[in-house]
């Protein structure tokens, strides 16, 4: 079938303003939007820039906005797109470096900020014990691939540039509810600030777009509840 892709183009080194460019490709219904982008880049226009790597939703490179919704281009199939027309744009609220490539430095800095590593006490000879029930408390948070779709889709993150954002909060959740970590209180205190968990207003956009089906908003709310339980009432 013939598919038209309308793609956001912007090369800050030569373009005064962003513009959209249409491309037509032949694609099978089972093919991915990423396959269409590759056909364009490889056969029609090598100037088109986007990131990609694993091509099956485990690395998180090709996050972008497809028909108005943040998604991975390697998980979105042609047959899911309406009327053979696909609008492709970069992740919103990030600075565009070229075409569909955005600047993720601040995003990764914020992931780094929440200390995305286990802080545990003494090292035993064998494994630290953890029951299946304790392990389950981390839930689907271990599925996060740091693709940034959630943060890009979040209306709060779009307006408040100081909001930590959903992805770092998921990363924090993973450590807070890891029974092996000994800094639960410190981690909760770090999030117990205006631009931490409390900035989240339950728009649920992060949950809607998460390509790994992580209940992001729910996890943020559970974290809020845990802060109330462990630390006390939130600031006014």
């Amino acid at each position, binding site marked *: 079938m013939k598919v038209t892709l309308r793609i956001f183009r912007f*090369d800050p*080194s*030569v373009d005064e303003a962003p513009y959209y460019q249409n491309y037509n490709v032949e694609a099978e219904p*089972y093919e991915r939007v990423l396959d269409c982008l590759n056909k364009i*880049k*490889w*056969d029609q*226009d*090598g*100037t088109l*820039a*986007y*990131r*990609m*790597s*694993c*091509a*099956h*939703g*485990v*690395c*998180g*490179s090709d996050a972008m906005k497809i028909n108005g919704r943040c998604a991975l281009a390697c*998980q979105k*199939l042609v047959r899911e797109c309406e009327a053979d027309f696909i609008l492709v744009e970069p992740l919103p609220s990030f600075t565009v*470096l*070229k*075409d569909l*490539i955005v600047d*993720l430095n601040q995003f*990764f800095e914020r992931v*780094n900020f929440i*200390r*995305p*590593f*286990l802080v*545990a006490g003494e*090292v*035993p*000879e*064998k*494994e*630290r*014990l*953890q*029951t*299946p029930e*304790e*392990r389950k408390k*981390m839930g689907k948070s*271990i*599925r996060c*691939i*740091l693709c940034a779709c959630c943060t890009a889709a979040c209306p709060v993150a779009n307006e408040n540039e100081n909001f930590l954002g959903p992805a770092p909060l998921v990363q924090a959740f*993973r450590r807070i509810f*890891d029974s*092996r*970590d000994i800094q639960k209180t410190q981690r909760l205190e770090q999030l117990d600030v205006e631009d931490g968990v409390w900035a989240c207003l339950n728009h649920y956009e992060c949950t809607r777009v998460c390509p790994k*089906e992580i209940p992001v908003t729910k996890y943020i709310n559970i974290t809020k509840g845990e802060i109330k339980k462990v630390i006390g009432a939130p600031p006014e």
Partner: protein
Amino acid sequence: MEFLFDVLVVGSGLAGLRAALEIPTSLKVGLVSKVFPTRSHSGAAQGGIGAALGNEEPDSWEWHMYDTVKGGDYLTDQDAAETLARDAARAVYELEHLGVPFDRTTAGKIAQRAFGGHTRNYGEGPVKRSCYAADRTGRVVLDTLFGKALERKIHIFSEIYMVDLLVEGGKAAGIITYELATGAVHTVRAKALLIATGGFGRVYKTNSNCFSNTGDGVYLSHRAGVPLEDMEFVQFHPTGIYPLGVLISEAARGEGGVLKNGLGNSFMTDYAPTLKDLAPRDVVSRAIDTEIRAGRGVNGKDYVHLDLTSLGAEKIQEKLSDISSFARIYLGVDTATQPIPVTPTCHYMMGGIPTDLNGRVLNKEGLPLTGLYAAGEAACVSVHGANRLGTNSLLDLVVFGRRAGRAITEDIETLSDPSPVKDAQVRVEARIKAIKDGNGAKPSDLRTRMQLIMTDCCSVFRNQTDMERGLEEIRGLKDKYRSVSIDNKGANYNTDLLDAIELESLLGLAEVILVSALSRTESRGAHYREDYPERDDHNCLKHTLVTAGSDGLEISFKPVKITKFQPKARKF
């Protein structure tokens, strides 16, 4: 610009990260990656990491070593297999201590499950040896090591491509890099250089590899004079989703999934009566292709079914949720009620840069090359021999990655500052200009042709006639590559240019694979010759080495290290 480090690690997957974590903070360590570290292909590993912890049933490192040697069809260097198996439990406990969220037994220990080729008591039956976190074990280990690298404040340079590797006078001198964001070319010198750039499954049409797996580290080492070892051994994983190649982990069969042909028969009983669906990957891949060749593919097509329906929705959701979501997203298949169409997909390269047990790269004479190290899929220790067992790859990465890091730390005082690099940066800049000025074929056209040729003539089944034809065609593509042309003449984020540069690596490695495969006149592990269907220990129990000489590729051999287990017939 020119940069100087004590240690430079190229590649940010598990091998590179684990090595970097082993190097003391007193040394200036840099880590360069084509992608962001969390995008590395180690993150795609699903099923688990092997270690004889004995948490679910009795197990021993000796059994693990034996399985690794037999799985590798006795081409495995047995000192390497012993190192791997003996160190496995420590390595897995270490990952647990660092934070990997392994699944747990009811007693709170690390849970384990069965995987292909792993057995109890020297082949009696399957054993639960794979330590796992659902079906995303590689991903969570990658996240854990990345977090640790952040904690250690290791300098990570993302989206930086190595475009040349310099070895001068038998010593590693440095690398030339291309910065994706700006197009800037830099010279980076280091006392010690670790190549951990992964595999190159992108040589084949249907593969499970990420787009970044183009084997740059392996090819550039080869171009700099390093011999490549056992390059004919290309692993095809039996269960790639048809037709995409996306992987369905062996864990699916470890948990009870069964392969069925077009007649609905579970055919593995005929090929491996003891281990059945849990036979090693080469055996299962050949069985599937044999069924398809005999016209017993599903609906007469070139795939078979992987049936998980007996597992039940709950178990699938708990232990195989990622792969069931792949089946749902890409095929619309509900794995709880419908079988998954699968076919062998190029997955892993057993061959690569030869190293000793400590990651030191060996020259043709078997002597360490000063300052150059390799680890992970780019390296050939050789711990996997002619066929790697599932779960031994993640183990290889953390065991030998760590050992390479330790060797660098030991050696660093004896390593002098790298000598200044002459002309290399100018040569690379001229090469980039030549690609931008080229007027020949597009990289994608040459790449597609290469992938079809390799798939056609050097896959699960091989023979001399097809491979000789393939070699001639690959050499023809190499000629055409000299005038390769691209649309994009720009400097920032020019992935068109990088496609062209990576293609040189792929074409060079395709040629080495074919030359190696033609030289091995026997069938062993993943290398099955229709014209030489038997294993030939008398003539071929040796490693292949291919070196880039002044008159083309030169073949030589080196002996296999045999310690505990004498080669015998390989039956499953």
